[in-house]
């Protein structure tokens, strides 16, 4: 397992939105999906997951529906709303801008100064 990275403040919502955008998923699935995609590099504080999910739902970015899980249990599935998709796009773009800016700063050489 690679080293785990700390989450930057404010990135939990972005990760949840992205995870939910890949297909309807329950809360535990969100956790698994993030761990799986990041190859275990990102681990979410599980206590923070549900408040974040409810907040995003309350703000209309995701919506939920009760369904049945793979092992045939009742579970609540989350799906991205239209507003959530728009929000995700905005946040992704802003994240990319941040990454590019950070990368250019961190890869700067004395000649560029």
């Amino acid at each position, binding site marked *: 397992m690679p080293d785990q990275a700390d989450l930057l403040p404010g990135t939990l919502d972005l990760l949840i939105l992205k995870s939910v955008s890949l297909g309807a998923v*329950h809360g535990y699935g969100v956790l698994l999906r993030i761990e799986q995609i990041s190859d275990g590099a990102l681990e979410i504080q599980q206590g*923070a997951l549900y408040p974040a999910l409810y907040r995003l739902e309350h703000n209309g970015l995701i919506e939920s529906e009760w369904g049945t899980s793979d092992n045939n249990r009742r579970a609540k599935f989350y799906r991205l709303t239209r507003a959530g998709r728009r929000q995700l796009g905005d946040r992704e773009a802003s994240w990319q801008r941040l990454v590019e800016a950070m990368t250019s700063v961190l890869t700067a050489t004395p000649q560029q100064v």
Partner: protein
Amino acid sequence: MQFFRGLLERLRILFRRNRFESDLDDELRFHLDELTRRNVKRGMPAEEAAIAARRSLGRDDSTKADVRRQTGVNAILNWLDAWGLDFKLGFRMLVKYPGLTLAGGLAMAVGIAIGLGFTSGLDALLYRPPLLQDVVTVRVWNLTRGVREGYGAPLRDFVRWRDELQSVQDLSAFIQFEQHDLVTDDGRGDPVNSAQITPSAFHLFRTPPLMGRLLVEEDALAGARPVALISHTVWRTRFGSDPEIVGRDVRLGGTVHTIVGVMPEGFAYPVNDRLWTPLRADPLSFEGDGPWVEIFGRLTPGTSVERARAELSAVGLLEHTSGVNTDEVLVPSLVDYATRHTNVEDTPPSLMHVVQLFCALLLLVPCANVAILFYARTARRQSEIAVRSALGASRRRIIMQLFIEALVLALVAAVAAFVLARISLGQLDAFLASRGDAEFPAWVRFGVSPPAVWYLLGLVVFAAAVVGVVPAIQATGRSVHSGLRNEGGSGGLQLGKLWTVLIVTQVAVTVAVLPLAAGVVWSTGRSGLADHGLATDDVLTARLVMGYDPPANPEARADYQGQYRARLQTLSNELKRRLEAEPDVLSVTYAGDPPGGIPGNWQRFEAEGGLLPLESATGSGWKFYDFVDLNFFDFFDLRLLAGRPFGPDDKAPESTAVIVDRAFVRDVLGEGNAVGRRIRAIRPADQEPAPWLEIVGVVEDFPLHEITLVAEASGTVYGAVQDISPGIAVRVRSVPAAFSNRLREIAAAVDPNLGLADVKTLNEAYQSRLDRVMGRMFAWSIAVATLSLLFLSIAGIYALTSFAVTQRRREIGIRAALGAHPHRLLGSIFSRAAMHLGLGVALGIVASVPIVSYWRKIDFGIVLGVPDTPGFLVAVAVLVMAVGIAGSVGPARRGLRVEPTEALKAE
């Protein structure tokens, strides 16, 4: 949008809180189980796996608390808890201060009810039923004089417009009339609001008949068989819901009509009609331009009313050959149909807002009063507020609490106002429906309208803001903490001179208007005719009706009228004879108008030999002129004061004998002997003078002829009935109402064409008169308003005394400690209240004199039923003083209970 969605979501969570909690539990449990399962898969023993899973997820309750915080549910719960407490406290305050609740609540209820009533009334008048959307009617403007000439236009123009106008479809016309001669088998002849209407109108109204068919164009062709369409009401009340009604023949206006259909219940178009006959839209069948008809039609889809107006004025009116001055320029225009019938078609849309604003401002008056009472109460609770403030309650929080206390009072007042408005509007509606006025649209129903309820809620918040917030801001100002210092001593708040002035003014206004209000309430609210000394419980009144259909030819018409009168006279004599033969009947008499109703024939009279006052002392000089049966005065026990009664000779056509009542003598003839003097009706200068009439007798006044609420109050000239007088009164031995069916049967047996309309007991006829009903409503309003004013004054005195006692607590304590006698202490407390009361009463007495005399001068014809002597005014003054002093007893007793040591401890 986001805000409202969030709010809705929170409310949803709140209302389904249990569900929300159990869902969250399920979700967390699912998560925990999955986590445990994964740990087991990774090789952990089951118990350890569960512990590790629990550790990763964290504690359920902290997660849940976090969820609640994130979704804002916590904030709402706290907020609701606080509000719940404030409301509870508000209700407790209502019970704890019953005086304020009663006086303030009543004053606010009256103010709110007025606003609610006006708004609902206006809503009703502006209402446009779905069937009448896009329906317009013609109005003719006289451009030369710049006035509205009237509604409708000559039939000739209607026919042309119907053929030429593109922007209006189903153009139709009607003439309303009261069908007085639909006499049914049971002898009923009550008038029926009817309309002669073009069959096209039924296409416009899009309502299929309940039975039979609608009127069709063929019915309106020359030579077509006369037909009629009847309403559900007529079918039910006049034909006993006869299932075989279609095809039945009835006599209308002397002509046999076949009933072709029955309209469904509630259908009363075009205005308030119950029977429809076809209008032949053929100007050639009438003289001149034909009759003026009301014209209406539906705008063609997609056409604006402006475009339709432009088209109509382009087509214009034809040059008239009759009826209208041809030198004047007349232009037809279109206005909304529904609102034209309630006379609000020209009303700008902003009127509703103006009315609402006005009513809110009106509410400000009682609210300002109640605010002062609230302020006084808040002042007494100064220490409580100071403690709350010291314990950390913010000023905003305290103001909110006081606002909610006021809101609770306003809500209670609003419930009372709602009930009051609902009852009053319901009464008005029932009264209008029972009158069935042909010109008043059936679709207008008075009641509290849904938009008015929103307005009501707005008024509640407004009233609560005025009553609660303003005093709260003042009471929670810089002096809050001095409340703590003064705990047990005098409060830090002051009641300014303004308040004292206001209370004194209130007392003065109460004293000034109370005699007048009592007089109005007494004289208009009296319940029965017994007050007039008339024994009327056994009298039934009605109006005779008989088919009348005169021919158009003037000569034939005169002949017809002569025969008609002779026939009706024969029939009415026969009816009287048969009635007198009935064992239950004591006596029968006739009069021009059925006794008990509002007299219909008014004339102005002059006396021979000198110019006599036209503008009489009690009115504008109009006197009632009636023709009565020879036994009329005996029938009603009216005493002859001078001269002689009518004799058989007075029934001769050439007789000029009249009998007048005392009111007539007083107003027209002045002092002196009236018998033998000659009078005549005043006619316009361009008409032949009326014949002179000789007064042969004077009788006492007939109280039923007194009209309340109108200027033309009294005075009657009686002539002896010469041929027909359709008003009949029957005195019976049994219960009069039970005899009414028998009365109709006897009339029907005399002649199938003879009917009786408005069969009522004399008392019913009198009580249902428009002036009586309006008078009762007026009296009620005055009574409630005055009562609320009286309560407010007493509450004001109470609050003033109570406040003074709180202020002087320390002083009273010291005086008690120094050995002051309780009587002296009581005297010093009462003296201030008595001074305010005395000043108010004195001012009120001074003000009442011009008010009463002004009232007399404008003279609504209201006879004050209570003595208008100075003695009565003194009685009112004593009453107000007494209740005012009684109002200050409570605070005074509180003052006496002040413990000297307690009061001094605060030093």
